[in-house]
């Protein structure tokens, strides 16, 4: 009896129990995060003809990165990330401010409507835009530019129109999500700030730039961070339009390049090297960004 009680106590003791709670994370971290990262690093120094046929090649894979495809992938990923941030911060911010008006009829309906695209998968949204950006003069976007007297465009085969197509798909799906982040932030701004600005005779624009935007700084940092992350790891948007091979590599993002090299050309060593550079890029951009916004000073 005494023994049983004792073991029971050890299992239930506060030195062991916490580790049981966090065990699921420890196991998945080791197996599905740390191990893959280490093997990606190792693979990036290898030539892999088959998983059992491996030769160590030093920095060869990294030297091979100096090729036009890689530069192109870097350019596409950077441009895409930059453009999505340039749109997906100001647009949802302004819409959130409009929606934050208590007297606005149907504000919940507007909010839900704008959130609806976020419920679709990239592929469902992609199916719409893929065919709407069709080359036929009757296809939706060609029809629309036709109203302005423009000739039908070959949207999904040009460098800039292809980029536009990817950005449009992303903006359509994400505006509503960012609106919700900004609305949550707006609700935290004390009303007194606006009231005292009113007494000082500030107009709407002044209030927006001197109260709203500075108060939303933490939300803007958060949204920028997830946008950088999402932008550089983008692949599905490109896949929805062109699967893994696009004309003139217009949709070849860094991740698309990893996928193509790994799964279409079976060159796992080289693909891993691309992945490691992407990891370094994302970590660096995130750190720089957090530093610029003074995130470290506060915490």
């Amino acid at each position, binding site marked *: 009896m005494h023994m049983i009680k004792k073991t029971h106590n050890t299992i239930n003791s506060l030195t062991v129990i916490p580790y049981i*709670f966090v065990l699921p994370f420890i196991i998945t*971290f080791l197996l599905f*995060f740390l191990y893959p990262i280490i093997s990606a690093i190792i693979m990036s120094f290898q030539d892999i003809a088959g998983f059992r046929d491996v030769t160590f090649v030093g920095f060869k894979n990294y030297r091979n990165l100096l090729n036009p495809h890689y530069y192109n992938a870097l350019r596409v990923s950077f441009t895409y990330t930059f453009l999505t941030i340039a749109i997906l911060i100001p647009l949802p911010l302004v*819409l959130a401010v*409009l929606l934050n008006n208590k007297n606005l009829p149907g504000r919940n309906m507007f909010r839900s409507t704008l959130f609806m695209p976020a419920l679709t998968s990239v*592929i469902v949204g992609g199916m719409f835009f893929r065919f709407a950006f069709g080359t036929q003069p009757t296809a939706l976007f060609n029809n629309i530019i036709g109203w302005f007297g423009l000739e039908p465009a070959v949207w999904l085969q040009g460098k800039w129109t292809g980029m536009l197509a990817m950005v449009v798909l992303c903006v359509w799906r994400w505006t509503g999500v960012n609106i919700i*982040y900004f609305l*949550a932030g707006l609700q935290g701004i004390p009303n007194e700030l606006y009231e005292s600005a009113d007494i000082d005779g500030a107009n709407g624009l002044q209030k927006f730039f001197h109260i709203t935007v500075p108060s939303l700084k933490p939300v803007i940092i958060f949204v920028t961070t997830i946008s950088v992350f999402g932008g550089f*790891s983008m692949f599905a948007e490109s896949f929805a339009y062109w699967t893994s091979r696009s004309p003139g590599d217009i949709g070849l993002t860094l991740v698309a390049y990893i996928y193509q090299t790994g799964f279409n050309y079976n060159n796992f060593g080289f693909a891993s090297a691309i992945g490691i550079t992407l990891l370094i890029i994302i*970590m660096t951009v995130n750190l720089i960004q957090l530093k610029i916004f003074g995130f470290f000073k506060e915490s």
Partner: protein
Amino acid sequence: MEYKYQNRTRQNKTGFYLSLAVLVFICLLYLAPFFFMVITSFKPGQEMLRKGLTLEIDFDIMTLNNYRILFFEDNRYLSWFKNSLIITAIYTSFSVFFSSLVGYGLAVYKFRGRRFLFLLVLLVMMVPLEILLLPLYRLMIELKLMNTYLGVVLPFAVSPFAIFFFRQYAMGIPRDLIEAARVDGCGEFRIFFKIVVPLMKPAFGAMTILMALTSWNTFVWPLVVLRSSDKLTLPIGLMSLLTPYGNSYDMIMPGAVISVIPVAVLFFMNQKAFIEGLTAGGVKQ
């Protein structure tokens, strides 16, 4: 003075109608893709192939035939739908269950390595899974999990975002309650299941919905793991319809439309929990 005041309200009124107009216009713009997808889903696939997705609404060529093919003739779609349901159910229950355990553990207990573990959670959040695509693929082959539901679910079953969310939420639970239960001789797991889980009900609601949405729509990882047509999930199945063979083109748009319905229902029934799930984790820090 009087004049100035009047001028001001007039300005506010114009601003008000202007913002209303802007919102209505933007909402219509964002709804348009849904509208045209539904319209196109009733048109023959050949029509879409020939003309692209058009603004045209022509009732003469619109039929229910595509939906008949989708549900009764071609059995691929229903099996993708079933696969998506199963994977979403497994993924959601795993991730909510395990992440709540971990989140609570990190929030409530003081133990060695707690801060370090929390940093690791943040680290996992900062690394895109796309980088791990190849090594994870290799691991799935070694574990014989290729082309299985578990292979899709397991690597991401413990979600760092959900851990983070549950941790934030669990920090708000009054410690006295837990202490009191301990004094009464309640075991730690009983405390968790009998006291903490009911208290964290809103958190569970929010995360269930968010994880279900994520899983329903996830694309890149299942694309790597799932190989045979009978195992595909909806997004990957829809992509596989982009071939000119058989009835594939007829099934694309109705297939896309139907695949949105389950999440749309989930969303409109639980909007509040949904929005909490999105915001509470990130913005409050």
